């Protein structure tokens, strides 16, 4: 696409894109640290994640302000307009991803050393998948690559499938040993957070698709999170 006649307009759009890329980098870092903190567990790192979340909040606000100012000044049309709207939406998703990372990090304090490693590794595995999704979607955004975004969109299924199996596993532990209910519940929330992060990356994927094609995705996203349909059987006393 050729440049705008007004160069400052190109600069404004370019700097918005840079701000989102920067915010994305920070969200990735927060997510990686949150996963590391809860799997070690490392409460100091967890506290750092909690403290840094504010940065993401501030960045979202800055992106929103700049986007609104650009709309007011330039009255963007077509692709430019979509680019600005998508910037605002992606910043909101990244901010939510930051919140979920922070929430996961917070739970480090509640997870004790005696927690079986195997249980924590499930969360770490999901976290790894979510991280990969986030990295790929930010790459797709940087290159306005709708087909790469669609790959991410489709692969959210994997996270959902893993979440289902971890959900069942944690349930089994809780049923066997009531003392595990506390820490397992925290882990359950932690994995749910990863699953939600996956959903936010698919939102971003949908926005990239919209940015490139000017239309929303017609096909419905494959959704494999079945945990809300899983009955929780408790043993009845005879």
């Amino acid at each position, binding site marked *: *696409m050729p440049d705008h006649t007004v160069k400052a307009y190109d600069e404004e759009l370019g700097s918005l894109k840079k701000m989102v890329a920067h915010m994305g980098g920070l969200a990735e870092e927060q997510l990686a640290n949150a996963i590391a903190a809860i799997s070690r567990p490392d409460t100091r790192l967890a506290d750092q994640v909690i403290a840094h979340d504010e940065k993401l909040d501030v960045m979202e606000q800055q992106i929103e302000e700049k986007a609104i100012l650009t709309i007011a000044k330039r009255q963007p049309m*077509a692709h430019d*307009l979509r680019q600005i709207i998508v910037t605002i939406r992606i910043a909101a998703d990244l901010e939510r991803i930051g919140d979920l990372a922070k929430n996961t990090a917070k739970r480090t304090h509640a997870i004790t050393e005696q927690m079986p490693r195997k249980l924590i590794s499930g969360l770490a595995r999901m976290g790894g998948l979510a991280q990969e999704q986030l990295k790929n979607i930010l790459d797709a955004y940087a290159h306005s690559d709708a087909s790469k975004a669609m790959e991410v969109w489709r692969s959210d299924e994997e996270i959902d499938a893993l979440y289902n199996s971890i959900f069942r596993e944690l349930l089994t532990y809780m049923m066997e040993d009531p003392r595990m209910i506390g820490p397992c519940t925290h882990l359950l929330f932690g994995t749910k957070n990863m699953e939600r992060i996956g959903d936010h990356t698919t939102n971003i994927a949908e926005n990239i698709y919209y940015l490139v094609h000017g*239309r929303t995705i017609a096909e419905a996203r494959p959704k494999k999170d079945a945990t809300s349909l899983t009955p929780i059987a408790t043993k009845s006393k005879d």
Partner: protein
Amino acid sequence: MDVSLPKRPASAKRPHILEERPIKITARDVNVYYGEKHAIKHLSIDIPDRAVSAFIGPSGCGKSTFLRTINRMNDTIPGCRVEGEVLVDGENIYDPRLDVVQLRARVGMVFQKPNPFPKSIFENVAYGPRIHGMARSKTDLEEIVVNSLKKASLFEEVKDRMGHSGTSLSGGQQQRLCIARAIAVNPEIILMDEPCSALDPIASARIEELIDEIQKNYCIIIVTHSMQQAARVSQLTAFFHLGDLVEVGDTDEMFTRPKDPRTQDYITGRFG
């Protein structure tokens, strides 16, 4: 909140507005030449009635030329030649038997700069109906003038000074006077050639408001250099470039996801 899914298929080729409204004007393979210069090339388009259509494009793209073929104003330009068919309600307006004066009563025009006659406000509006013999009595004529001024949202501002000269009004009022003058002869089509480019934003907004109000009764075509204005007032947008009609479509589509890269470049301010 009532949420309904869009009815139209995403890939509809024909503008949706043409399904909703009857077609008023049809151009088929129209070519316009100014001497050697080929100003409009093989243009074909359908324009809906009771709606606003906007023509956009860089200067010299042919949009005003095409506008002037619709009331045969190009006839007055020496060396100008029009080929092809322009149908209004199915009737070819370039048919040699057609009465051009009658045609121009059906097709009103408003120009870039307000051009009231150097006569009173009343006379400015009464002139057309009088020469077309539309009023049988003085009361008839007064009624036409008052109604036209009301439709043009000017009546309240001028009712106490109908005898004052039209040129004593402000620019925005003069433009509304010209619209009242166009409306007075009961036209079917109103052509507007950049009607707001000489007006301040408030006067422009009043003209846009007026266009909104009257569009349900007329076929309105507006040539504008303001993309935002085209996006705001029209339902159909046609983009012209170097004498070609590049793209025509529903306005909401044209300004959010134009199909042709030239349209995209123009409306986003990327034209070199």
